[in-house]
Structures are given as C-alpha cells and as structure tokens.
C-alpha cells in the first residue's frame, strides 16, 4: 500500500467530518481522485515534477495544537488567521478595530452564497490534486469581503504537532480557503509559513472570486525544509475591471509546487504575477501558471525569477491562453534564471496559445550565471570576492522584489530570501575552502 493510493486516501477521507452540504462535493471529489490517481511524470503538467517521493511517505492526520503561536508582528491593522495543520485555529483583528463587512466562517456556518462559491472557480481546472484537496478538506475557511471594503488579511501556516513527532507517519495538512471579494473592495492578502522543522505534507488550495472593480493582492512567502512538501493551488476569477496582483516567493522544500490559475472574465481586468523560485540542496520548486484571457481588453504581466543552487531543481511553466473573444489584450512574460552550480537545473517553458487575432504577447526566458562585469565593478570598488558574489546573488532576486506591494511586505520577504541566499553563499565558500 502506498500513501497516496486510493485506499489510503479513502481511509483518510472516512475521518473527515464536515458540514452535510459539503458531503456530496467531497464524495464526488474522492471518486474523481480514485479515477485520476496521483499524477505521474507521463502527464504534461507533471513531466518535470515527480511526486514519487509522496508514494513512500506515510501520512496521517495532524495532531493540532490549539495554542498555535502567532508571529505576525508589525504588518499594521489586519485580520489574522492562524492555520495549524491546514485548519484555521483562530482568527482575530489585530492592530485596530474589527472591520465591518468582513466575515470569516467555517463550512458549518457558511452562507448560501458561500456554499455556492465552494469549488466553483476550481472546477474550471479540475485535476487530481484539487480533487484530493476537496475530498480531504476537513475544514474549509470562507472569507467574504463586502463591496467597497478595504482589508488586509494575514494567513500564517504553522505545523505544531501536539505530543511531538511519532513514528507512525507524518502529518498531512489540508487547507482550503474560499475568498469572495465584493465590488470595488480591496483585499491585501499575505500568506506566510512560520519557520518550523517538523516534516509535513500540505495540500493548500485558495480560490477567489473578484467582483467588478475589486482588487486582490496576494503576497506569498513559503520557505520549506527538505523534509516538507507543499502542493499549492491558487484559483482566481476576475470580473470587469478587477485586478489581481500576485507575488510568490516559494523557497526550498522536498516537493514545492504552485499551480496558479487566473481567469480574466471581464473587460479591463488586469493581473500581474511576480516572484522568485529559490531551490538549493536537493529541493524541487515548481511554479505552473495559467493565465486565461477569456474576454478582450485585459492585460497580464508576469516575471518569475529562478535562482538555483547546489542540486536544486526549479520548474517554471508559464501558460497564457487567449480565447477567440480576447481581442485587444496583451501579455508580457519574463523568466530570468540564475544557475549557481553545475548540478542545478531549471526547466522553463513558456506556452502561448492564441485564438484571437488582435493581441500583443511577448515572452522571454533566460538562463545565466552572474554578470562578470558587475562582479568586476563591485570588486574594483574594494568589495571582496565573497561579498561581491553575495551582493549579486541577492541582487538577482531583489530586482523583482521591487514588485512586492507594501514596504513592510517587501522588507519581511527580503529578510527571508536574503537569509536563505546568504546560507547558500556561505556553504559555497566552505566548499571552495
């Protein structure tokens, strides 16, 4: 028996006890997963990302700790959600008053609209992994933001194991967030992982529907250890003039996969997707992105940088589709990559699928090493070899860090990525000895 085979998933699903209205959807998802099974590398979307290590990883439900610590200091006035082992353990407004027009509910309390919204955006891209998430979502978090409301939301993932690590398997954390953003509302969502050494496997799915003129900023930072796996999906649908701005910083992990799915459904909708992949040691960090232009007069922009060191493996697949009606639209995509060792790998693939005749599309992937001229320039100003190298490694990522929204987010994320990069540089100096 392997861990993600149908039998084991079914036995895990048997323990899921959630709202009655959710049961049919979960049963259908379980059937879908049984049918599709865990993806393998013969499938186009998983060609470069093998899930084989999961099949030998024995997973069990987490033993959550109700006193999971909050660590979001600063970040101003926000709604804070502490998610332990995939489940929202508590939520509260910090740094200011409760913001009217923002609700947080679980499945049992979900409104009729929220129930209707569950799985709606995801269904447009149904696959084995989101079927797995749906079937095993023992709790679903619904956040709804009324028209014209502005709010910052901070989601923190922790993996506290009450009673310590047992030898009977590692925890499987299944997280599901359903966000509804009303007309002209503005949501600034920050999602981060709290540094934690426990091994875990996480399935995290976030789906959002943005009404007319709504704006969602999603700033994601997730640094993993080499005994942690995260399989993440983000599904966002945009009505007319809505905006979705994503900044993703997935760092490390044994298997760290992000599927970003954006649907531009209304005219003048706009999306940007920035970020960086950092993979070192034996990490596998993958961003698969699909930006789907269904209607005209929309724009999308994307720049994902990759920094690969040691035996790190990065994957970027940037797929953009323009449907027949997506006239007068444009997209620009960039994927610059920096390889710091001979054993590091980047697989980069832009895919443009265009059925409209009046669109502007550009894309470019580059793979390179550090700029020798810049290195010389720094050294000619007295900066030593190690420091010049460190500065340029950081610079490669910092060049896209400018795209984070909010100085506090920038500084927070930069501190995480800098520490990781500095550690890579320190190890490389040790090796050179």
């Amino acid at each position, binding site marked *: 028996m392997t861990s993600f085979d149908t039998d084991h998933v079914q036995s895990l699903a048997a323990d899921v006890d959630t709202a009655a209205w959710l049961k049919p959807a979960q049963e259908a998802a379980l059937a879908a997963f049984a049918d599709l099974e865990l993806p393998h590398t013969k499938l186009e979307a998983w060609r470069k990302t093998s899930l084989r290590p999961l099949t030998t990883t024995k997973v069990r439900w987490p033993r959550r700790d109700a006193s999971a610590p909050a660590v979001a200091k600063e970040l101003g006035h926000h709604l804070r959600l502490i998610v332990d082992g995939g489940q929202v353990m508590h939520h509260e407004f910090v740094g200011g008053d409760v913001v009217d027009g923002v609700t947080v509910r679980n499945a049992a309390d979900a409104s009729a609209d929220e129930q209707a919204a569950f799985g709606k955006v995801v269904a447009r891209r149904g696959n084995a992994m989101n079927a797995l998430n749906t079937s095993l979502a023992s709790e679903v978090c619904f956040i709804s933001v009324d028209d014209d409301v502005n709010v910052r939301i901070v989601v923190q993932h922790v993996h506290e194991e009450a009673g310590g690590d047992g030898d009977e398997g590692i925890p499987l954390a299944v997280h599901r967030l359903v966000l509804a953003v009303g007309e002209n509302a503005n949501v600034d969502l920050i999602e981060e992982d709290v540094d934690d050494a426990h091994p875990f496997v996480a399935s995290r799915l976030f789906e959002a529907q943005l009404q007319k003129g709504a704006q969602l900023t999603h700033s994601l930072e997730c640094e993993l250890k080499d005994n942690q796996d995260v399989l993440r999906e983000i599904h966002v649908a945009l009505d007319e003039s809505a905006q979705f701005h994503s900044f993703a910083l997935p760092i490390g992990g044994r298997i760290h996969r992000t599927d970003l799915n954006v649907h531009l459904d209304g005219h003048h909708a706009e999306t940007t997707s920035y970020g960086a992949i950092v993979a070192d040691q034996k990490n596998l960090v993958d961003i698969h992105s699909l930006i789907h232009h269904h209607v005209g007069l929309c724009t999308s922009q994307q720049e994902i940088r990759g920094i690969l060191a040691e035996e790190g493996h990065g994957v970027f697949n940037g797929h953009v589709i323009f449907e027949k009606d997506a006239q007068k639209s444009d997209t620009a995509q960039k994927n610059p990559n920096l390889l710091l060792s001979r054993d590091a790998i980047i697989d980069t693939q832009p895919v443009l699928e265009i059925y409209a005749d009046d669109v502007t599309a550009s894309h470019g992937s580059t793979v390179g090493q550090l*700029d020798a*001229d810049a290195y*010389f320039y*720094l050294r*000619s100003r*007295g900066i030593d*070899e190690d*420091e010049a190298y460190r500065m340029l490694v950081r*610079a490669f990522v910092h*060049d896209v860090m400018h795209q984070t929204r909010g100085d506090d987010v920038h500084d927070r994320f930069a501190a995480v990525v800098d520490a990781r990069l500095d550690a890579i540089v320190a190890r490389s100096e040790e090796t050179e000895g």
Partner: protein
Amino acid sequence: MSTPLLEIKDLHAVVGDNKEILKGLNLTVNRGEVHAIMGPNGAGKSTLGNVLSGREGYERTSGTVLLDGKDVFEMDIDERANEGLFLAFQYPVEIPGVGNHYFLKAALNAKRKYHGEDELAAGAFLKLMKEKMALLEMDARYKSRDVNVGFSGGEKKRNEILQMTMLNPKMALLDETDSGLDIDALRIVSKGVNSMRDKDHGMIVVTHYQRLLDHIQPDFVHVLVDGKIVKSGDKSLALELEEKGYAEYEAAA
C-alpha cells in the same frame, strides 16, 4: 623625496587574444600631481586603466607598477582599491537589484575593514553621502536607485565621481570621464574632481579633448601613441594637440 604614488615602469600588456597594446609605458605620479594623458583612438588609454585595476582579459606581460611603493600585480582587484587606487570607468556598469547607497556603503565599509577601522555609523554615512551628492548636484533619488540602472550617460559619470569623492582614493584614474558630457555636466564633474585636489592626492585624467583640461588644470600632459608615452609637457601641450592633432606623433611611432 617621498615614494611616488604611482610608478609605472616599462609596462607591457596584452588584451584578449594576445594583442600587445601597451608597449613599454613609463609614468610617475607624485603626491599632489594631476597628469593628463591624451592620445588617438587605439593608443592604449583605456587599457592602462583596465590593467591597473586588474580587469580580466587585460594581462601585464612585463614591467612593474608600484602603488605607493607596493606592487599592484601582487594585489587582488579589491585590494588595489582598498590600497587607494580608483578607476572612474568610461562605461560604468549597471547593477540591477543593488541600491546605490547600499553599494556605496558596502564599498566604504570594505575599505574601512581593510584598514582595521570600524564600520561607519548609518547616520555618518548618510551625512557624507548627502554632502557629496550636493557637491555633484545630484538629485536625492539617485541615492535609492539601483546602481547606474536607467541613468543617462552624464548621470553615470557623476555617479562615478560620487563614488570617488566618497571613497577618497589617494590615486585616481579617470578614463574619458568627459565623453558624452554636456557643458553643465562637465562643469559639475570637474567640480567634484577638483574638490579632491590637494597635496596628498594624485590623479591621471585620460581624455580625447582639451576642453576637460580647461576645468581640470593638469600639471603635466602626456601624449600616448601606440602603447607608449611619446611626449610629455605642461598644459600648453594640450592646446598644441588640440590645434595640430596627433598626426605628427603617429607618423613617428
């Protein structure tokens, strides 16, 4: 007589594919002196700066260069800088992702560390930077912009001079700093250079044109042709070159 700041003796150097560019160059710069080197394209003007600073692809084949008595070829690129050698580049490099003030701070602190001094306090650094930027009439926004990214030609040159005035090298070589500058920029850059002239500093100003020397008055002018200095004189030599060109020297070389 004290040790010369820079003493170049019979310097031969090759570039890339072993093409000899410097063919026995001799030059001595003492404290307090400003030397101008003029010469036609391809004479080896830029090669001199690149060889002195240790750029890859520029190789000394024979001859010696002493910086304040120390052999520069025994030093790494950054050591040469920390010993007080500065090259203002003809084509300054853009470094996306590195903020200008972060870069300057790293450079300044590297030099202090090299000399066994503590890092400069943040406040003192900012004050120094503000003062030097005011001298060079640079807008405050250049402080936080990435090094040379999106700077015009003139702004890049000003940024070179900003680095020079902050690092305060004892020996500076300005490689065609005047190229591509309009009259205002030329005046400002010269103001920065002149602010460093005193009895302790030495400078080499490499240029094509005499007009820079109206602003930075040299003590000596040298004509560099085919990898060698073929004539030296005072600033009147620059005026003569402006009038007659290099033909006479090129024919002789």
